[in-house]
């Protein structure tokens, strides 16, 4: 019954973590020069209540099933991602023999969900946002896979629990110094956060979400923070030693590490300008992909 306990823990982490992201983002915004927006602890909840009460917008001839499905799908992908994260050697929802591959698949499917969100509205700005995101989504996925294969090498397994166990002596963040920075960039892309927010950007008046209001938008925003949480869980597992740590129980260690990754992402999202799509693609393929090769070779030589 460990798996069912872990499932409760996973959904709890999604909810609490998502709330923590929203609060942290506001606190960081305050530190970065935004005016005080009222109680940072209450504001995410109040905003959620407002979105829930707002009418859901409909455009003239949208693809309605897909439009409503896309946010839910993105949320489901986030939940599946977090379900792969082991909270302790035994406390895990699904310690799949090929967990790393499943995470790669989730990233690829996330691109589909985000594209669908932009496409279905049948509105010019949302459409541009969706297409633009695909350029990014199809570029970062390779970087992500290479970096994660790097952590698989010493573990000799595609299981996330093995990946953690292989970090008993030394965390991957030290062993493969290029890995975590590259993976964090992937995380920014996956959640279209800050500099890589090509989907819902300012210049498109909200991009894929520009025509969305009310409960669907609430689900979309929840899904986005949930994806941040799931990503931080994977990042903490793959690079920061997951549940490993002295004194405290494993799940707590993991939660702390996830929080650290979340804070880093939230901060990065606020301090960097948005990249031009063309430059994103070139950056991913010409700079980050070769860097992930280097990371892989480094990891390989180190593992032997």
């Amino acid at each position, binding site marked *: 019954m460990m798996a069912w306990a872990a499932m409760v823990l996973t959904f709890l982490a999604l909810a609490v973590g998502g709330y923590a992201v929203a609060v942290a983002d506001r606190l960081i*915004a305050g530190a*970065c*020069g*935004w*005016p*005080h*927006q*009222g*109680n940072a602890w*209450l*504001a995410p*909840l*109040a*905003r959620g*209540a*407002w979105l*829930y*009460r*707002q*009418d*859901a*917008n409909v455009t*003239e*001839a949208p693809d309605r099933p897909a439009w409503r499905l896309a946010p839910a799908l993105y949320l489901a992908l986030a939940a599946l991602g977090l379900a792969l994260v082991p909270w302790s050697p035994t406390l895990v929802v699904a310690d799949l023999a090929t967990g790393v591959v499943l995470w790669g698949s989730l990233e690829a499917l996330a691109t589909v969900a985000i594209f669908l969100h932009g496409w279905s509205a049948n509105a*010019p700005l949302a459409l*541009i946002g969706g*297409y*633009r995101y695909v350029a990014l989504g199809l570029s970062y996925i390779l970087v992500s896979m290479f970096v994660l294969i790097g952590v698989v090498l010493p573990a000799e397994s595609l299981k996330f629990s093995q990946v953690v166990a292989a970090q008993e002596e030394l965390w991957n963040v030290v062993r493969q110094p290029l890995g975590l920075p590259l993976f964090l960039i992937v995380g920014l892309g996956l959640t279209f956060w*800050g*500099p890589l*927010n090509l989907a819902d*950007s*300012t*210049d*498109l*008046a*909200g991009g894929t*979400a*520009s*025509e*969305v*209001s*009310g409960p669907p*938008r609430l689900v979309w925003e929840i899904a986005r923070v949930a994806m941040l949480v799931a990503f931080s869980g994977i990042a903490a597992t793959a690079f920061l030693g997951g549940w490993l740590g002295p004194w405290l129980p494993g799940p707590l260690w993991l939660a702390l590490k996830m929080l650290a990754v979340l804070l880093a992402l939230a901060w990065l999202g*606020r*301090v*960097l*300008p*948005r*990249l*031009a*799509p*063309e*430059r994103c693609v070139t950056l991913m393929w010409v700079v980050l992909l070769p860097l992930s090769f280097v990371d892989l070779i480094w990891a390989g030589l180190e593992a032997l």
Partner: protein
Amino acid sequence: MAVSWLGRLAARAPVPVYPLLGIGGERALYPLALAGRVTRVDSPRHASVLLVAGHVPVHHHEALKRVHDQLPRPFATLWFRSQPLPGLENARRVDDPATLTDELVALHRELQTGQRGSSPRLLPDEPPNPWEGLGDDGHGGEGMMGGTPYGRPMAMNMQDDIRDGLTLDSLTFRLGPFYPLLPPGLAAEITLQGDVIQSWTNQSPAYPRALDAVFQTARERPVAIAELELARARHHLRHLYRALRLAGLEGLGLKALRLARELTPASHLDGLRRQLTRAGFFRLAALDGGALDAETARRLGGPAARAAGIDTDRRSDDAHYRRLGFRPALGRGGDTRARWHQKLAEIEQSLALAGRAVDEGDLTTVGPGGLETPCGPWRERPAQDAGGCLEALLPGMEWDSALATIASLDLAEGSASPPPGEAHAEEPQ
């Protein structure tokens, strides 16, 4: 009751406001951006309150109604120094910028707690073209591409692509005059293929932007150089805020606004410039492109011309400026990036001039004569086609770099005289 409990919670949310800026509406924008409890949103779908700031000319009332109707219920409108449209008798009007935030918060709370009904729709509930029951399948369409399925025709191939020779469909629409990322009032008919602009035709120019009163005074009598230069720096800083917000660096933009609000001759730009560089604004943001040719740059004048290396600045003619060691700062290239380097350099120059002018015993300008406003040499009649350069400049650019280019240009010709209906409005701080 669950709903009222949710409503009370929702009432405490930061108020999402869609600011629709009319003539002189920007004076409401800057205090609002720095005010707490209010979030500025870019799409009416994300807003709870529509803030109409400033006078909206009659020929834009239709567009105003369109934006108004696009807010999902429940929503309210607040009119800042603007007359509510007929049909919105229940709307609230406010003229004092100091109470603006409180009014917005109050409106939102009333909406959420049910004390106020949602604003009524202004436009008739009709499809753009009749479609129901028409056409082959009763949805308005005919054949594969014909008819008006669900009320609109389908996008069709209109022109050859400007870049790679694959001719696919082009998408034509009119943007503005209230698109939040364009200068208020600027409306254009745009044709896109993908996200590359194929053609850009201006439909209405940007509303004139009120310059600081000191520029008007400087036309008539000598004014303190310090005051003039601070006003200039303030203008540029606010401009910087708009561009930084577009680039995704709103935090730094707000710092620029704060700096503009508290500007003194002793202020300096070093901190902001350092943060901009460190954040990678010049390297990462979409600042490539948008290079003006020499002729256009000369016609636009001001920082845009100087960024292209054209030595034009009326301040050079002023003996007192020369005494302060003034020499126009010149840039190179004349593209979007060069314009921002230029603007930052000019802000620094203005602050330095202001400081030196104070040291020299509050030096004044020599007197009436050629005046260099922040957007170029003073013109009696604002050039109506300041945005005309866009039609040649933007085709071939991607959406984001096109918007970044527009944001780097002062397309709203500065009018030193206050806009109509705003004769007694003072600059709110």
